[in-house]
């Protein structure tokens, strides 16, 4: 009797949270969907065309082609994260999270609703940036399955992390601290623009402690078939992070930390 069977109603609730989330970022598309298109265009023009043309081949492909997967991944990470962080924080701040708390929505579904909302924005951003990239390079895809699998897992991981951030945030500043001081450095040092093989051995080893490196390389493997890291390790690590963060987020929501007095 005690096993939880989620009924149809819980799935309708999940669908409603998703609709709400997706409507939200489409409503403010100038703040959400446009910036990655612009920033990434700049990256391609500056690093890809201007500088890249002097760099020569990397692992047998043009520099532009080499950095494309990392740049897509970078925008997927930031957008999944900040979608959930700002949406959940503002739901807390405007108190419309109470709409969910008074309703019989199981905690798991509240969590999934926000995470999938973030994943969807990550995916849409990914598609936009890929389309931008395809204006500059002839994209080849070595393994579609890996591309999709890695990008979905990565955005799940960062969407969940964004929720954890929002739960603890006490002001809007608190949701930009992690992206600015943690995510951005990790992505820049995560081998988006270079191969860690180019680094001295010491820094290669330090880089291996950076989770973003694994995601970027797994994703690049999906496109180009080259990676600094064994692909299985990369996927195992992402799954490990998802499980960890998801458990933390579930615990926080179930306890009502920051949302119930």
């Amino acid at each position: 009797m005690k096993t939880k069977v989620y009924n149809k109603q819980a799935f309708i609730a999940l669908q409603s949270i998703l609709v709400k989330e997706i409507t939200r970022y489409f409503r403010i598309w100038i703040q959400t969907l446009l910036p990655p298109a612009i920033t990434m265009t700049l990256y391609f023009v500056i690093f890809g065309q201007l500088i890249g043309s002097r760099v020569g081949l990397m692992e047998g492909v043009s520099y532009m082609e080499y950095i494309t997967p990392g740049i897509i991944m970078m925008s997927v990470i930031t957008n999944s994260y900040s979608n959930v962080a700002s949406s959940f924080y503002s739901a807390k701040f405007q108190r419309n999270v109470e709409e969910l708390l008074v309703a019989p929505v199981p905690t798991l579904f509240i969590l999934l609703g926000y995470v999938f909302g973030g994943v969807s924005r990550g995916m849409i951003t990914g598609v936009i940036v890929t389309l931008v990239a395809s204006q500059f390079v002839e994209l080849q895809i070595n393994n579609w399955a890996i591309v999709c699998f890695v990008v979905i897992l990565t955005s799940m991981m960062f969407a969940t992390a964004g929720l954890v951030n929002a739960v603890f945030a006490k002001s809007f500043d608190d949701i930009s601290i992690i992206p600015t001081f943690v995510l951005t450095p990790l992505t820049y040092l995560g081998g988006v623009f270079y191969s860690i093989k180019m680094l001295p051995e010491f820094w290669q080893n330090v880089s291996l402690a950076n989770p973003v490196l694994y995601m970027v390389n797994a994703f690049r493997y999906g496109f180009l078939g080259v990676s600094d890291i064994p692909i299985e390790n990369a996927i195992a690590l992402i799954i490990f992070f998802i499980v960890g963060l998801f458990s933390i987020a579930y615990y926080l929501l179930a306890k009502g930390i920051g949302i119930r007095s």
Partner: protein
Amino acid sequence: MKNKAIAISDLKKTYSNGFEALKGISFEVAEGDFIALLGPNGAGKSTTIGVICSLVNKTAGSVSVFGHSIDQHLEAAKRCIGLVPQEFNFSQFETCQQIVVNQAGYYGVPRHIALERAEVVLKQLDLWDKKDSQARMLSGGMKRRLMIARALMHEPKILILDEPTAGVDIEIRRTMWTFLRELNEQGTTIVLTTHYLEEAEQLCRNIAIIDHGTIVENTSMKDLLSRLDIETFILDVDSVPNELPKLENVEYRIRDESTIEIDVPKEKALNQVFESLTEKGIRVLSMRNKSNRLEELFVQLTERAQVVDREQKNEN
């Protein structure tokens, strides 16, 4: 006997800063009732509602809604309740229709049904022509009605309204009263908090008065009003007679060998009372009003309500 719509027993809440907002309150609401939870600001009304609707974690005690304990069957309990909170708590940037349809979705109402219901409910609350307006564009009264519409989307058996008419002008307040009365006649149990005595008097059959986190009175509106009409006096007398006077509607009680207490309805002339005392040879040396906790509270409440009314008239 009717079902209990809400049963609260020895409910306590201490906030994380150590403040004890509820000190063990108990009361029941019968199915189909229209009850007011009356009390001054800071009394603990919103806290009580917060616990019932799982926005506030209780510290001790039990709450059940139509027999579903919020500890064991929270989801079933939640389905029975529609909440209209004290503060606006919708997303300011969503449209009226999005807000009510999504809310229905959270209760598991399929989207196509939710869209139909949204039309009915928004029309009832006179918001249909605003269905595509963002919530922030609405006036205060409309926002309040939007929250009522939202609370009705899943057709709850109980509607709980936390100060629904605060900051709403008098005309709209009366329309809202009519709406609530009709809803109650159709069978919805209604719990309403207010600090307007008049509102409780106009609408409610029963009343629970809460102050400083305790229930100071829980009775029918009728009983309460009749009791408020009675004034109690304390008389210092030179000697207490063997037999007390008899006078219609007046109650005499002996407190000690030199004090008598009398309850006199406000409309009764005091001359008659004194005559009755004189007849029995009782000499009254001095007399004072017995201060009555309930009355003090009411004076406080009605004064505040008048101030608020005046403020609102000035605003309009």
